[in-house]
């Protein structure tokens, strides 16, 4: 699927730089030792803004849930409708979710609870983006 290109900004640059190197990083509060995603300017738990870092994670997870998108608001994705849109829970912290189109998984035949691993796919402008692939039921 052809996702929109990504133009990293200063806040998100570390996330996209890591993706370009095929590494997955998630924002982490050193004070709380707690991951958070989506990233924010401050820790959602303690409020600190100066204790945030980008922490490497394992790139393993499970499929928490999914829907099938038939009417997508993003123009570039419309030619691929219908498509799976799943939510992945990270093994490092099941409270942390990431979206995935689950490349290779048939539409509406998604094994909820299955193990997945991160892969990296190019977007429309070549920026690599984290995606997830089923590795077992």
């Amino acid at each position, binding site marked *: 699927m052809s*996702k*929109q*290109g*990504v*133009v*990293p*900004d200063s*806040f*998100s*640059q570390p*996330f*996209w730089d890591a993706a370009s190197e095929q590494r997955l990083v998630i924002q982490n509060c050193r004070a709380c030792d707690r991951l*958070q*995603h*989506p*990233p924010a300017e401050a820790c*959602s738990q303690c409020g600190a803004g100066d204790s945030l870092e980008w922490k490497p994670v394992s790139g393993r997870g499970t499929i*928490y*849930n*999914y*829907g*099938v*998108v*038939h*009417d*997508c*608001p*993003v*123009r*570039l*994705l419309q030619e691929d409708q*219908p498509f799976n*849109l799943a*939510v992945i829970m990270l093994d490092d912290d099941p*409270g*942390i*979710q*990431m*979206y*995935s*189109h689950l490349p290779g998984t048939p539409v*509406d035949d998604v094994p*909820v609870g299955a193990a997945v691993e991160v892969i990296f796919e190019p*977007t*429309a*402008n070549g920026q690599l*983006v984290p995606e997830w692939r089923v590795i077992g039921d």
Partner: protein
Amino acid sequence: MTTPTAPDAMYRNDEGLGIWEHRGKVAAVGVGHAPTARRWDGRAETCVGALSIQALRRAVDDAGVAPDQIDGLVVVPSTTTGSFWEEGKPLPLDVIRSFRQTQDPLDGIAKLSAEWLLQNMPELTNVRFTMYGPGCMSNALNVAAQAVGDGLTHTCLVVKSWHNFEGRYYQGGDNAGETLPGTAAITRLWGGPASYGTALQFAEYCRKYGKSHEMMAPFMENSRRNGLLFPEGYWAQHRPEELGPEDYLASRWIAKPANLFDNDIPIMMSGAYLFTTAERAKDMRQKPVYILNHASSNTRPRSLVPTLDEVEADTARSARKIYEGAGITADDLSFENMYDGFSLFHQFHLEGLGYRGIRFGEALDFYQTDISIEGPNPVSPSGGNVGGGRSRVWMHTDCIQQLQGRAGARQVTGVRPEVAVSGGPMPLAGNFTVWSASPD
């Protein structure tokens, strides 16, 4: 006059606050609605500002109050249904010149400020208090109730309006482009439509409790039926079509398991209310409907989408706040009238309230029983957004009118309308108002 946004302190977000200090001392006495339309037709008299003026004047007239007695105005400044005035598109100068303008030429067309309203409603000569309750009417009602209770205003108008321009819902702006800014891209590259998060929660709900999308059909049919009995609503005014199970279940998917009818239809509309003190309300035209409490939730999910556990924990927490501040229990609710746009989360509100003793996972079974306005367990007598179009207002209007006994063909007949709660929008991050026919 510069209008501030309501401070956090005006919302009752926490448990353990006890009975609301103004319980029964604030009342709704006037209701006003403007005619609905599917989209703006470009005329001055149908722009969102004009609709707002119309709704406000009707609320004043409904209450039987002289305009110079109004001293407060609470406004929801955002009016978009998901459509925006595209950058570079020529401004509608003929419309702009039809009104007294603020510094923003799209004020009254694609947004709404208190200043714009006051400049274009010269009869409101004594408004000294203005405030924004951002989000939807549920926020603004809480702000207005607290403001009247606190004595910041004694006769206060509240308005929420919506504009809907040509074009597909949320398909302009960044979504039409080739690239996304990096921060937004972290969550938006995957293209989930607005109802996607709710669809996920519903999917998890069905897996956990062994329910199915088909079980929503009686609720949808009942809601549309009630909406068609709401003369102010979009479907009643423009498309008086029932929504039977076959039509509902045959509808196309948007984000499976959410189909087209599970998504409320965006419309042009405006709704307004007049709040005052219980003391002053006695002399007004309509029977007062007293506010026993307002409560709010500002809970955020841990990550991208709320999980079912997070939803259920928060709806239960909201219910405790609702009941605690009002000094009531679930047994006191005459009917159920929470928000429904998207339809697939209505059961979360219902179960959180424990309406008629329903527990988590039981609402869809409850939908298979008599939930009509004639029965003992009315569900969504307003018809909600399913029955009236996207307004986030119908349930509030309906609670007031039911308790006043002037809901017309929609009037509940199987129960005595005494106490009700309305609010939303989402199961997380909602605002709720408890209404009563009696101040006690």
